[in-house]
């Protein structure tokens, strides 16, 4: 059997040989540069700390990176169905499960690459223009378990938690993409999940105290709040371990649906 990596290489080729991908990457690079340069030009105070700015920009960029990965995810499966290329892809000597896995892995690699570029540029530009000393007490809240730690450690954990949230949203979009083969639906629902999710659970948790609310996906995606010593739903007793367990269950369910639908379905049209 041929190396599985070649399938991932194929998926990568289909991602990185498109202009679109480089425009996305350009945006991730340009946004922190523009924001910081404009800030430096118009700001009158000099109290800004590079780490603060990095965290602010990163939180914005992570929404963007999530959307970008969702777009690529929907293209990766639903797109191949709509262009018909899926037929030529599935008649090769590989099981469908393996082909889907290669697509999923290429998406995770894509999100890791973009997160790394985001980390590098948000740190680089802010350290260069605003200064990023080792003292970053302003960026780490006193309530955080990381209070007193190095800002590197704090930001790394921040990225990890944001990335886990991204993986959940992308896995959801991958499921819609493979189950309904509709790129538009996949992108739309995932963006809804990303932005409306927190609002919906916020309203629910304020109006009712039913214990099932904490098992909802949205109630657990905001892992970064644990980093600052809080929890996604302050009215409920929740721990990081609990949220990770809930997310793991959703992760497994989403993937089980993606794979079972993709493996069974007849490819027509």
């Amino acid at each position, binding site marked *: *059997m*041929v190396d599985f990596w*070649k*399938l991932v*290489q*194929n998926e990568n*080729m*289909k991602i990185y*040989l*498109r202009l679109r991908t480089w425009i996305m990457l350009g945006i991730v690079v340009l946004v922190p540069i523009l924001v910081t340069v404009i800030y430096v030009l118009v700001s009158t105070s000099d109290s800004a700390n590079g780490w603060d700015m990095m965290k602010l920009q990163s939180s914005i960029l992570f929404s963007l990176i999530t959307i970008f990965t969702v777009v690529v995810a929907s293209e990766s499966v639903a797109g191949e169905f709509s*262009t*018909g*290329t899926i*037929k*030529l*892809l*599935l*008649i*090769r*000597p*590989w*099981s469908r499960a393996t082909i889907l896995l290669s697509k999923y892995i290429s998406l995770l690699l894509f999100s890791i690459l973009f997160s790394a570029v985001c980390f590098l540029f948000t740190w680089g530009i802010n350290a260069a223009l605003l200064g990023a000393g080792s003292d970053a007490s302003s960026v780490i809240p006193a309530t955080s378990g990381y209070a007193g730690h190095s800002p590197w450690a704090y930001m790394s954990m921040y990225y990890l938690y944001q990335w886990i949230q991204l993986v959940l949203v992308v896995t959801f979009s991958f499921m819609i993409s493979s189950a309904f083969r509709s790129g538009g639906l996949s992108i739309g629902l995932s963006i809804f999940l990303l932005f409306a999710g927190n609002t919906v659970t916020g309203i629910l948790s304020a109006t009712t105290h039913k214990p099932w609310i904490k098992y909802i996906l949205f109630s657990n995606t905001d892992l970064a709040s644990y980093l600052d010593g809080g929890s996604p739903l302050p009215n409920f007793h929740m721990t990081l371990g609990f949220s990770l367990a809930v997310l793991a269950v959703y992760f497994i369910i989403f993937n089980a649906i993606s794979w079972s639908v993709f493996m*069974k379905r*007849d*490819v*027509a049209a």
Partner: protein
Amino acid sequence: MSQTPVARLQDVTKRIGGRTIIDRVSLEVYPGEVFGFLGPNGSGKTTTIRMMVGLMAMTSGDISIGGHSVKREYPKAASQVGAIVENPEMYKYLTGYQNLVHFARMNPSITRQRIDEVVKLVGLSGRIHDKVRKYSLGMRQRLGVAQAIMHRPKLLILDEPTNGLDPAGIRELRDYLRQLAQEEGTSVFVSSHLLSEMELMCDRVAILQKGQLIDIRSIRGETGTAAKEAGEALFEVDHPDAALGILQGQGSARIVDGLLQLTADRDLIAETNKRLVEAGIRVYGIRAKTKSLEDQFLEVTGGETVG
């Protein structure tokens, strides 16, 4: 034929929502033959092909390719197959060459040299580094053929391969398929609703109607024997009625579409011609009325066009 078949379909049945799309189709394709799969639109040709390449599941029955079941050992069966299912859809944002590299990676042991060789074979050398977006339909069809034969499959499956090709392209493809079958021993399974084309291309033809296999017949064999035996002969003459009067003795003589038609072997044709000419009838042409595949096809499918 005593050879082991490359592809064997056994009682293949496909039901979708209570409707039987394919009904117990069984057939075998042998090494080095061009096998035509003929049927009106909607008769289930594409569905059958999709099941052969594993894009659709069978409701019952089984298909084996090179002895491997498509159901149970899909990767092994698929490694022996090259196919174009309907249109050759490629990644438009990649170049032709990148598309081939993409598919080559999915099969073991396709070298760069092999890719170049195939590109030359399908006549795309000049444009292979252009994006597929800029290709004409004919060029995409060629690229489709290239990806299908790259790994030297034992069985090449082509679904309506002449769609969108101009006459020169059709002829080229036909010659190429015959060459592939004869020289490399590749079996070719071609579907089409164009009868005349299948007649020129295939060794055997299966006729499908409403999901059922009506007939499998050998084409080359029948056209070979036609000349010696008595057949229908058509005479183009200036006065058909007068000619019919002269031939009163011959019971089969009649007028069809302004032509004099009779059942005759070679000698009788010559004799009849002599009699007509001697009686002062001008004979402009004589030809044998061979039953074309089209006639046979319409005969067995009852002239229906949509199943």
